[in-house]
């Protein structure tokens, strides 16, 4: 045991080891020592039993013994709790089990061989090879004195959650009309002006009576049980990519507007912390607690048929008919890209040094290879931006002819304020400012609604600009 001065003894039970692990810490040592003493007693008793029943025990039998040890430790631990106030040394001295050699060894090891450290916490765990590792045992009343108390300001900063009973709602209010303005500015680019959604972003209004249909539409009006969920989620995670940028009043206003879009309030409605819990959503009672235990699980717990279970088998549906599996070529592109990056680093360095003007040169005679790579990178953008024939504005503006276009220059797209300012100043997209924007959208155009973190490498930016340069205004 001397190799493990801060740990407890290794007690052999036939061929299987039972390890009681002890980790040393601080002033609640007495209690811990008591636990250890109890454990030692239990083990000592079991050890004798095991020795008596000899070495050639089967592994299974040993496992049983181990389990008994664990149980006894827990039982004993409760008994010795009364002695908690006693100093650790006394406990060791008085330990009734000290007459058993293994236990003595253990106490010596834990109490004194560790030098200055105090004796130790026990984490009562028996281990046997035939077992999965155990959980750390019961530690009622034991703490580690780690961490520090949270200051009220700190708790207030993070404790933003709202419950259906209104717990957590801050004082504030917002009406439907204000909500519409805030929503159009911050939400409509993804969720649509009327909550109908753009592309595959979530629909926020309607869907009534669709829950039994083939394609149910789950909105706050049709499905969500509680209004507090709307407030909480908008406040904690929206707008997407600008989380927690809305004021409390704005969140009340957006929530009011969503109620209005779902025909749940009139247009003169104002929502506040005062009237919040009076608003109930239509599907509140549409939910019930998981009941698999009562129905499915018993039904699915019968011994199944193994032989001659059916006469014939027909294929009833095939995935190839739907054909929605992603193509393999993506993996090939990745492979190709990986090979390219095996090229000497000098090329990359050169690209990094290349000033933006070189991008302009490339545009004049665009390298097809760059364009092809750019097409791959554009995958990151195409959820929101379209290019090519028939491209239209979606979450973001279409990008045909974006190089050379006035910033914020499409009349039929609702831009962020910062784009309107750039437009007023007559600024035009070129490789340089577009490159800077792509590298750090929010840094280059503070307040942009584009929720994209930016392209990570100069290479990606260069190929993206090369790709975009191939689409002329239509």
């Amino acid at each position, binding site marked *: 045991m001397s190799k493990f001065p801060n740990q407890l003894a290794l007690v052999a039970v036939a061929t299987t080891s039972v390890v009681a692990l002890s*980790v040393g810490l601080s002033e609640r040592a007495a209690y811990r020592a008591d636990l250890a003493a109890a454990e030692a007693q239990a083990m000592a008793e079991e050890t004798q039993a095991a020795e008596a029943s000899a070495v050639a025990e089967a592994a299974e039998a040993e496992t049983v013994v181990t389990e008994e040890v664990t149980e006894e430790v827990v039982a004993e631990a409760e008994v010795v709790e009364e002695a908690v106030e006693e100093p650790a040394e006394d406990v060791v001295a008085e330990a009734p089990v000290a007459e058993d050699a293994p236990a003595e060894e253990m106490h010596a090891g834990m109490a004194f061989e560790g030098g200055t450290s105090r004796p130790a916490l026990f984490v009562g765990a028996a281990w046997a090879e035939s077992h999965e590792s155990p*959980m*750390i045992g019961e530690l*009622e009343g034991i703490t580690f004195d*780690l961490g*520090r*108390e*949270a200051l009220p300001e700190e708790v207030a900063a*993070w*404790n933003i*959650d709202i419950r259906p009973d209104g717990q957590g709602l801050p004082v504030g209010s917002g009406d439907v009309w204000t909500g519409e303005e805030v929503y159009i500015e911050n939400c409509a680019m993804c969720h649509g002006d009327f909550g109908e959604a753009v592309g*595959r*972003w*979530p629909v926020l209004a309607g869907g009534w009576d669709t*829950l*039994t249909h083939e394609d149910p539409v789950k909105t706050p009006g049709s499905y969500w049980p*509680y209004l507090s*969920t709307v407030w909480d989620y908008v406040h*904690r*995670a929206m707008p997407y*990519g600008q*989380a927690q940028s809305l004021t409390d009043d704005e969140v009340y206003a957006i929530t009011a507007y969503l109620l209005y879009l779902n025909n749940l309030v009139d247009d003169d409605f104002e929502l506040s912390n005062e009237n919040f819990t009076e608003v109930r959503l239509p599907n509140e009672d*549409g*939910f019930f*607690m*998981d009941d*698999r235990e009562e*129905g499915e699980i018993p039904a*699915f*717990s*019968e*011994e*199944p*048929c193994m032989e*001659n279970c*059916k006469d*014939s*088998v027909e*294929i*009833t*549906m*095939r*995935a*190839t008919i*739907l*054909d*929605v*599996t*992603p*193509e*393999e070529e993506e*993996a090939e592109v*990745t*492979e190709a890209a*990986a090979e390219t990056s095996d090229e000497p680093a000098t090329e990359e360095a050169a690209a990094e040094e290349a000033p933006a003007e070189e991008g302009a040169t490339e545009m004049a005679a665009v390298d097809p290879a760059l364009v092809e790579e750019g097409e791959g990178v554009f*995958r990151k953008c195409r*959820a*929101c931006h379209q290019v090519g024939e028939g491209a239209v504005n979606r979450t973001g503006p279409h990008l045909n002819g974006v190089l050379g276009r006035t910033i914020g220059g499409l009349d039929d797209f609702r831009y962020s304020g910062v784009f309107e300012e750039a437009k007023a100043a007559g600024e035009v997209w070129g490789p340089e400012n577009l490159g800077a924007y792509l590298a750090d959208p929010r840094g280059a155009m503070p307040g942009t609604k584009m929720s*994209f*973190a930016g392209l990570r490498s100069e290479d990606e930016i260069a190929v993206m600009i090369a790709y975009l340069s191939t689409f002329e205004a239509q």
Partner: protein
Amino acid sequence: MDMKFKGMKPSRRSFLTGAAAAGVGSVAATVAKGQTAPDPAITELQDWQVYLGDGVDAAPYGMPSKHESHVVRRTVEWLTADNVSSINFTPLHELDGIITPNGVCFERHHGGAAEIDPAEHRLMINGLVDKELVFTMEDLMRFPRENHVYFLECAANTGMEWAGAQLNGCQFTHGMIHNVMYTGIPLKLLLAEAGLKTNAKWILPEGADASAMTRSIPIEKALDDCLVAFKMNGEALRTEQGYPVRLVVPGWEGNMWVKWLRRIEVGDEPWHHREETSKYTDLLEDGTARRFTWEMDAKSVITNPSPQAPLTHGPGYTVLTGVAWSGRGTIPRVDVTLDGGKNWHQARMSGPSLNKSMHRFYFEFEWDGKPLLLQSRAHDSTGYVQPTKNQLREWRGENSIYHNNGIQTWYVNEKGEAENVEIS
């Protein structure tokens, strides 16, 4: 944000091309039996036999062989509105054993993979506790730790298959799962440090990312086997898996395993937040919905052969393998059928059988070159038997999205190509 579970047709693709590509990518040319010309792979010196390989520092952090570059997570673009709040899939058909390598563990995040400086990370415990606490990572490292192998399965795994066979490949049908060894602090120790008040009934873990993910978890589970983990497979959590610290909720749906864990609130009622109301509730045929369906039912899938991993060797001795798991215990038994369920055989389990962990099974057989209808059926340690998809639909209809643990069928044709099908 939203996942759409019914597919939209992509541009062009033939399943045969996919199968062929997978075959070429993963299997070296075989020499036909009875060949008389000597094999140049043996008779000719290869470059690697002659020239020196890389020195020790060529890759301070090692990566897989370049010949394995096809073993990657893949995404299904039509599933989500963008690639930030999105999901990708573990390449189960390329893996063996029970441990998922960290680099191919599937990802699902709701506000992107937060890049957190561990020195600036804090974990707060507040609410119904005697003392509201703040821990640094350094503090957390001083608590006793445990090591456990657990599977993490997204509740939406196989969610695209409710209405019928849709995606061709176990990576896409079953790849929202990984299985790693976590090193972490039992959550009960942290809660005890703060001191639970007697009316503490629920906790609300919260993430530090831009989605500030939250889920309500009953206190019984929190005090049972939850871990606050900082390592996976021995190394620090990967960024996309919640670095520097995440919650581990063994056997329960992956969404609850809050990543980038920054706060745990203790309360007396559930919060009914977005991911436990509008999402992760199971809509049934009659329009009502189950809530708090936390446990993952027993499930299995044959990973090889499968659509991305066809049989390329022709008739003869064939290794069939797959994985099985249950949120309620271990998997003592898996049955396999080659004929669409007329006759079943017990598979051979191999590797550690751990509570709430993936299990590996094999079934070796002599393939006669005729078409196969392959299925596997898991039995867990509670006696639960994995149901067929039709059995599940009888209870749930087709709209519940989550918790689809129905039996998967692969049709293997005479050429060894496999397809996702449903059968009578």
